[in-house]
């Protein structure tokens, strides 16, 4: 069942078109992550769903009800913000109860809901404190609690963890995931952080310039990006790209390198001689593995970048830079000659013109 449906949504700020006829269909209980570069319109989309911005054209449905022009409070949503946005002059309890008091809920019902939210989020000892007396992680918990007590079907998160340090972020990430499993609400979650996106999402919507580029499971987005932008945006370190063309006999060729494409599953059949980009992720290239790869080459190591558990090894394939990710214990020295190999089945090939997947 559809929980949130966005149809042909456009939004302009003056002459600037921020969202361009955007469509999004989120299922009941689904965890959807909006991912994209800064300024692509993620927050704007979320604010439109919340009713905090008036849309220019298009319709928004929540649980089958057209809410395009409803007030935020009547949409059945709760929202968590990057800056927590806790009311500074109210205690934690005041923060949690503010929305419920506005909805004129009876006192005992308010107390019950606060107790439940406080228990789930483990903030019971903090209820009488002011936000200024809380740590960042505690503040964010309270902010989540404020959405929780409203007992709504849809949770909207706008980069809720990006003000926290890495360790707390990892902790709260797990907690949010647990919360989702426990409550089974629909959640729409904006983030910059790919790890958050990959670990939390049922489906990821990759946005760019006010449009959704790909809306699919994390695996599909990682393995089968629909275009060059998504391929380059997802994954860190980023995908290697070799520019070349399709040679006769299903081969990719770029100055001096010929990669057989027999095992590659084409999404659409390329023409011979078509200019394409060949993309392969650093973690899909093997180094000195001894195995027999459909494509292999002997290359010289340029630079070695240890990153902790993994190491990035920079080499040259033809005239193209190629990064290879290896476990640090198998790290070569720069200047070494090494064997590399990969299976073109794991690669992605994009049309050089429109950037679409082939």
């Amino acid at each position, binding site marked *: 069942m559809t929980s949130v449906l966005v149809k042909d949504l456009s939004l302009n700020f003056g002459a600037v078109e921020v969202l361009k006829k955007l469509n999004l269909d989120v299922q009941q209980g689904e965890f959807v992550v909006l991912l994209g570069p800064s300024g692509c319109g993620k927050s704007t989309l979320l604010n439109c769903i919340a009713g905090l911005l008036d849309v220019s054209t298009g*319709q928004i449905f929540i649980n089958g009800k057209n809410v395009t022009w409803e007030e935020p409070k009547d949409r059945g949503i709760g929202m968590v913000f990057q800056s927590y946005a806790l009311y500074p002059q109210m205690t934690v309890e005041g923060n949690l109860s503010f929305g419920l008091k506005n909805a004129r809920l009876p006192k005992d019902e308010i107390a019950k809901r606060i107790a439940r939210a406080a228990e789930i989020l483990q903030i019971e000892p903090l209820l009488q404190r002011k936000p200024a007396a809380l740590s960042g992680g505690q503040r964010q918990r309270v902010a989540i609690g404020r959405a929780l007590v409203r007992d709504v079907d849809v949770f909207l998160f706008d980069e809720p963890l990006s003000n926290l340090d890495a360790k707390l972020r990892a902790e709260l990430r797990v907690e949010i995931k647990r919360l989702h499993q426990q409550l089974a609400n629909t959640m729409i979650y904006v983030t910059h952080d790919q790890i958050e996106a990959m670990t939390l999402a049922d489906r990821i919507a990759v946005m760019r310039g006010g449009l959704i580029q790909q809306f699919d499971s994390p695996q599909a987005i990682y393995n089968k990006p629909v275009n060059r932008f998504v391929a380059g945006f997802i994954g860190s370190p980023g995908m290697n790209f070799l520019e070349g063309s399709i040679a006769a006999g299903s081969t990719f060729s770029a100055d001096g390198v010929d990669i057989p494409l027999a095992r590659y599953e084409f999404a659409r059949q390329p023409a011979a001689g078509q200019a394409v980009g060949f993309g392969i992720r650093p973690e899909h290239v093997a180094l000195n593995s001894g195995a027999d790869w459909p494509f292999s080459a002997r290359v010289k190591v340029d630079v070695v970048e240890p990153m902790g558990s993994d190491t990035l090894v920079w080499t040259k394939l033809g005239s193209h830079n190629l990064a290879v990710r290896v476990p640090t214990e198998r790290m070569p020295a720069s200047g070494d000659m090494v064997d590399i190999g990969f299976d073109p089945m794991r690669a992605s090939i994009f049309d050089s013109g429109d950037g679409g997947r082939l």
Partner: protein
Amino acid sequence: MATEISKRPNSLFRNLNAKIASIPMILTALVVFVGGTVWTVVYSFTNSRLLPRLQFVGLDQYERLWSTPRWLASIENLMIYGVLSLIFSLTIGFVLAALLDQKIRFESAFRTIILYPFALSFIVTGLVWQWLLNPDFGVQHFVRGLGWESFTFNPLYDQSIVIYGILIAALWQGTGLVMCLMLAGLRGIDEDIWKAARIDGIPMWKTYLFIVIPMMRPVFVTTLVIIASGIVRVYDLVVAQTSGGPGHASEVPAKYVYDYMFSAQNLGQGFAASTMMLLTVLIVVVPWAYLEFGGRNKRG
């Protein structure tokens, strides 16, 4: 599956409360500021006397205005007073701010002392200085008492210099404000500029003159506009200190307007004179507003 289309509600009723709450502002802007100004300008072309009448007489009021010696004296005074008070208050204000910006002790005490006159009204200012400049008891009397018998400093009873007497009082009252604005401007300048200038061996006064002051252009412009629009309005100070005298030697336009509207019962003259005041302000404010806001709109 929900597919019904919801229509954009009438935009008049969106945020209705915000619009209702803004009614006082809208009324003030439209009725008083725009309406009042237009009304006065229109009636300045009539021969209204005791009561406003819509009997147009073209530019008669303006012709009479510009041939009235009292108005001419007012304009002359305003020019002298305006130019001098701009020059002096900017210079003194900046120098004082620069002195206070030398990381001195007791900065806030000095600032409090220099700024306190700004809290006083022009009436109080005018009366104090009337007393201080009183020839029989004030400064002149004091200096003569010290043995300098021929000392003469009697601005309030000397037609040719009375406007300077007013200027002294105005500067005493207003330089504190200029100093504060300038100090805020100086504090806004990047510390590294000073370090760079010191490393380059540029003397302090040169750094101020050629680096800091040009950087503070916006502060100067804003201050200038504030002082200038205050100058055009100057009224209470003159009323309190000299009542426009001796003769008409310290008359100013604002006083001319008031006297013609409420004492001489010649409204038309008052309207014409106030329209001229408006024109003066526009000459100052419009270029500034254009520079300040016009450019920004184009960029943003």
